[in-house]
């Protein structure tokens, strides 16, 4: 088992714990924006999509990668914009 893998597992475990700590105290008022904002972050898979689409991995990799770029971009752009739109409405008088 190579070192990189162990290191990545380590990163994964720490990030999960960090995620629990970060989100635990979010008031329920913000649950929807939190969800859609987090959803936009899960569009990070766009990084992998770009590499597949733009690298020289053969026809299938390019085609599937491009489709992945398309969907991930919707997820990212749409997710952040709609979260921003929602949060713009939360006002205190």
């Amino acid at each position, binding site marked *: 088992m190579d070192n990189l893998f162990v290191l990545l597992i380590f*990163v*994964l475990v720490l990030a999960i714990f*960090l*995620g*629990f700590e*970060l*989100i*635990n105290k*979010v*008031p*329920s*008022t913000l*649950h*929807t924006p*939190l*969800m859609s*904002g*987090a*959803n*936009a*972050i*899960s*569009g*990070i*898979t*766009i*990084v*992998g*999509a*770009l*590499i*597949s689409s*733009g*690298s*020289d*991995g053969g026809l*299938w*990799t390019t*085609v*599937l*990668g*491009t489709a*992945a*770029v398309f*969907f991930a*971009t*919707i*997820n*990212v*752009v*749409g*997710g*952040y914009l*709609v979260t*921003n*739109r*929602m949060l713009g*409405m*939360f006002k*205190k008088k």
Partner: protein
Amino acid sequence: MMDLLQSEIFANLAYIIASMLFIFGLKQLGSPETAQRGNLISSSGMLLAVLVTLISNQIISYEWLAIGLVLGTLVGASAASFVKMTSMPELVALFNGFGGIASLLVGSAEYLGTGSLGLISLTAIFLTLIIGGITFSGSLVAYGKLSEILPGRQIIFKGQRIVLVAIFIAALLFGAQLIFNFQMVEGWNPLFSFLLLISFALVIGLLITLPIGGADMPVIIALLNSYSGLAASAAGFVINNNVLIVAGALVGASGLILTNIMCKAMNRSLANVVFGSIASSSSGAVNPEEVGEIKPINVSDAYLILEAANSVLVVPGYGMAVSQAQHAVRELGELLEENGCEVNYAIHPVAGRMPGHMNVLLAEANVSYDQLQEPEDVNPVMDTVDVCIVIGANDVVNPDAKENEGSPIYGMPIIEADRSKTVFILKRSMASGFAGIDNPLFGKENSRMLFGDAKESISGLVAEFKS
């Protein structure tokens, strides 16, 4: 200079900065004052990650990815700009699904690519395919149910659970074949396993979400949200990229926490929501004789009571979203406040079709967020509330949750509207199959039913106040 920017070390450092921006962003999403800035910070992290990837020397041609980026931006931006706030649950579900399919496609592209793959990569690909596939088809079903393309009720067939378990085991088997490439039958190609695995993942997603009834939707949306993060994390192991792993794990954890909050708010375990056979929102344990007399009230009488009230608590539910009554509700709230009355909104965590659904609608209608309160804030002072206005909510105010041990919702934390001095319940009608009669709140001494469309009833009250 360009060499440095294209180097792997530079890219990895930039990914670490992007991860930090995600973490800061999520942290700031936790408070209404900073949430919008948090979202901006998080999006700048995403922009950084994308730019660094685009200039890296791993990418040699831009024609295809440019098409994907431009089309995706157009679709995403227009969906986000034009969606109505009441349609937010289905849009979130749809975006979730797109995240899932994107991860699935990344895993597939890597699998079908020219590079040779080790055991770890293959295992990661297996996980990406299965989680991504479940997220995609599950989210599409959730989208279909929420947008009423599919019937919102539970869709169950006989032996569903057995089929689900069988397909899951088969998926594991073909996953093992994909990873270890052992001889299954003469002439078996791992590509078959790859294709079967994707199909099974899609079917599992369907089988998990089809039995979910409308009232349980918040749980499943939060769960799918978590899956979309986990799929991205798994894709991170496929391409050995730390920012995917960190960002995916953060989303996975946040989705799990929300799922847990939703389950607690319904006093049910996750297994019970996903596999349980509880008929959504029907608590048949009470028979009609036990419910007291139903006392209707008309708008003018309701106005007289409200006019004399010093403290009003509004309890919104999915019915408010259906009749789009949120703006009328805000207007009534403002008139009551001008009349010297204290107005608050009690929002149950599972009211509506996704976590925080009611909060978004009321925020859209310009209700100040410090008026939006949680059950544990309002229940202790419920005795001092003069009028509780229940708008299209049912289970979350059902006293059976406290009083009737035989009720399926017994033990669920509720908003104890029945303890206020007067309760107005806005419902379309009692006649619709007597579906609502199983809520003993409707027959309590202090309850009054205001029949009709919620928006019309509230607008009627507004008109009375103005006249």
